[in-house]
């Protein structure tokens, strides 16, 4: 780009996005978005994916961001286009995903007049963005885009909205690439305080019953190699949150799997009994802690987070460290390497954990209704993809089974709406994840409920040749709510039975995708192999047992050792 070339705002935006390294954006045109779409028509490097609903654009951009670590970009027109992004923006906000949402706005002089398709989107999204802009001047475009990408992707990442009135896109101004920042109020801390890191290392070195508790920050900061080093150096057993699945290989002997409401017996008891809880980039969410007062009652707590506001929000740590997980963990490793330590210190603890893992594995019974066990379907997906697929999910029972029965081995492998719990996230997110990782097998595990919320994005997958594999665990219920009704509401299944359903096989075919129906165990493998091998978007309708529940389960607000299920398979005893 020649410096200070005059151009229209719409072209400047394309140039600015390309300058940020953005090569794909997901969007949907509309009246005031036309100037930008006109510029996109000639864009060389920037690829636009036309979704079928703006919510799909936001989720696809989010899925792309989570699976690649790069900023995801979506765009929508003013009014309803912009408001349709809201669920996707909130989803990204709750899971700290770097998203830039460009919304188009009515002409500047019409703002505030209730003009056609006018909505105050910066106002509407205020509580669910990391930051937002309402542009007034074409000349500010490049700088704003540069700042938005910086804010979205650094510190604790999050969504940034840029709302642009159409006259700003139509106006002309000098364009030059923006490379410097003017953000006097934004200076995230990456490196932990040396003294605190040293104190934490000392506590780790002296602990008899330590537990590493990993959160989304472990993945965001690309800290997996450092965490592996740390865990192996002091033989620290590892529990991960849903957001951290893949930050530590679950094939590793030190892995205890996920903790919390649907966590493993081993992980929840280890946290309950530990004398040192090392939280790396997690936020003591209620789905993890259960009853907060009874959480990790014997433990000293080390809390590492890049967001100072998370430290002390729910749990007051003895050693707080503001910094990103990568830098701090590297610091811990360095400190510990200089300290003497004997494996005897934790030998008994590790033996206890190993025994528990042996005695209390995740298990399930074969369903009595003769239908497929949903857990088996996930285990088969895991086996056939060799722990190596990117797994996206919706929200509910299938999501929890996906956390439990797939073996995650690398970061950014599991893409799921954790904080907001957004049904309909899976399919569009998987499209984004696949576009960002064309060489990976991408599986969307959905329920029959969530799939129907955004299933029109099958058309997007077909039209851009994005061969995602959608596995619907179809039990004819909104299963997680039904499970709660089963356990806590006297089995009064109020509006959770989905009686009328499309034939998902025919539906997939109607979209031009491949549709398969699986009712028998021995059909699972061939169906999966076909879906993964055919190079086309494919939907597999797995007819799973209707009233299967996710266990173990800690009822909301209870101590995390108060688990329903989770008894030993052999002895039927509780831990």
């Amino acid at each position, binding site marked *: 780009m020649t410096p200070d070339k005059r151009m229209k705002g719409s072209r400047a935006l394309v140039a600015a996005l390309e300058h940020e390294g953005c090569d794909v954006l997901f969007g949907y045109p509309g009246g005031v978005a036309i100037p930008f779409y006109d510029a996109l028509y000639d864009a060389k490097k920037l690829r636009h994916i036309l979704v079928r609903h703006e919510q799909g654009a936001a989720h696809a951009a989010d899925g792309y961001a989570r699976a690649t670590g790069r900023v995801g970009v979506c765009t929508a027109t003013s009014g309803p286009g912009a408001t349709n992004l809201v669920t996707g923006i909130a989803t990204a906000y709750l899971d700290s995903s770097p998203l830039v949402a460009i919304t188009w706005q009515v002409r500047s002089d019409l703002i505030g007049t209730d003009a056609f398709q006018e909505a105050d989107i910066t106002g509407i999204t*205020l509580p669910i963005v990391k930051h937002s802009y309402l542009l007034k001047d074409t000349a500010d475009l490049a700088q704003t885009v540069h700042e938005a990408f910086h804010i979205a992707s650094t510190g604790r990442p999050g969504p940034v909205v840029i709302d642009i009135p159409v006259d700003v896109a139509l106006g002309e101004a000098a364009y030059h690439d923006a490379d410097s920042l003017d953000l006097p*109020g934004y200076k995230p801390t990456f490196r932990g305080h040396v003294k605190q890191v040293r104190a934490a290392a000392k506590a780790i070195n002296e602990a008899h019953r330590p537990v590493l508790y990993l959160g989304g920050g472990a993945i965001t900061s690309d800290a997996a190699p450092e965490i592996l080093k740390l865990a192996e150096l002091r033989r620290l057993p590892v529990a991960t949150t849903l957001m951290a699945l893949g930050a530590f290989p679950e094939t590793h002997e030190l892995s205890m799997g996920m903790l919390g409401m649907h966590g493993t017996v081993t992980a929840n008891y280890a946290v309950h009994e530990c004398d040192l809880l090392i939280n790396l980039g997690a936020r003591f969410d209620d789905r993890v802690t259960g009853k907060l007062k009874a959480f990790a009652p014997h433990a000293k707590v080390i809390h590492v987070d890049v967001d*100072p506001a998370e430290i002390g929000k729910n749990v007051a740590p003895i050693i707080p460290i503001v910094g990103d997980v990568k830098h701090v963990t590297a610091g811990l490793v360095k400190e510990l390497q200089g300290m003497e330590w004997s494996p005897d210190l934790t030998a008994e603890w590790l033996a206890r954990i190993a025994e528990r893992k042996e005695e209390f594995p995740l298990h399930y019974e074969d369903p009595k209704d003769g239908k497929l066990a949903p857990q088996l379907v996930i285990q088969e997906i895991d086996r056939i993809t060799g722990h190596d697929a990117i797994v996206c999910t919706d929200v509910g029972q299938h999501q929890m089974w996906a956390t439990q029965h797939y073996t995650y081995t690398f970061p950014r492998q599991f893409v799921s709406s954790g904080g907001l719990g957004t049904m309909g996230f899976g399919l569009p997110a998987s499209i984004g994840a696949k576009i960002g990782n064309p060489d990976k097998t991408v599986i969307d595990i959905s329920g029959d409920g969530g799939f129907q919320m955004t299933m029109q994005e099958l058309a997007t997958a077909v039209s851009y040749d994005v061969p995602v594999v959608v596995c619907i665990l179809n039990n004819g219920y909104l299963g997680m709510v039904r499970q709660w009704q089963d356990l806590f509401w006297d089995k009064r299944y109020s509006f959770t039975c989905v009686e009328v359903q499309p034939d998902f096989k025919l539906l997939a075919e109607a979209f031009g995708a491949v549709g398969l129906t699986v009712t028998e165990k021995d059909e699972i493998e061939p169906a999966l192999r076909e879906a993964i091998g055919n190079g086309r978007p494919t939907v597999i309708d797995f007819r799973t047992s209707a009233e299967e529940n996710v266990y173990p389960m800690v009822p909301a607000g209870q101590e995390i050792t108060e688990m329903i299920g989770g008894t030993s398979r052999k002895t039927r005893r509780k831990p």
Partner: protein
Amino acid sequence: MKHTLSILVENKPGVLTRVAGLFARRGFNIESLAVGLSEDPKFSRITIVIDGDEHPVDQVTKQLHKLINVLKIRDLDPGNAVAAELLLVRVAGEGEKRTEALQIAEIFNAKIVDVDRRQLTLRVVGTNDKLEALLELLQPLGVLEVVRTGTIALGRGRGG
């Protein structure tokens, strides 16, 4: 205990909404709020008074710091800050009441800024406590209308 936060923010459209919106979203109550330009027209200074017993001040300030447009936050120590609030009060004042109102005004260093036969309006500057005391004394005379600016404050010595 009350806390007075002095917040330096970028002087840009929507910044006050972000600050106020954050208080609403996190469920923090604002006792008073005052905004105006600072010494540098690029920045505004917001003074917010909150009840520290109700909300952990630490959490409030950390959340505020996350706003991109917020530069600096000081939790002002009352012993080491100057604070003032402006109050206008319209009070009934006929006959004896008028004399009493004038006496009270004098004690509090209040100015009479409007007067007619039935009532008078006082303007007074002072700390929150002083204004409360004034209102309490005026109450028996008949307080008709009150408006207050909310506290503004600056740390002593090296700036706020």
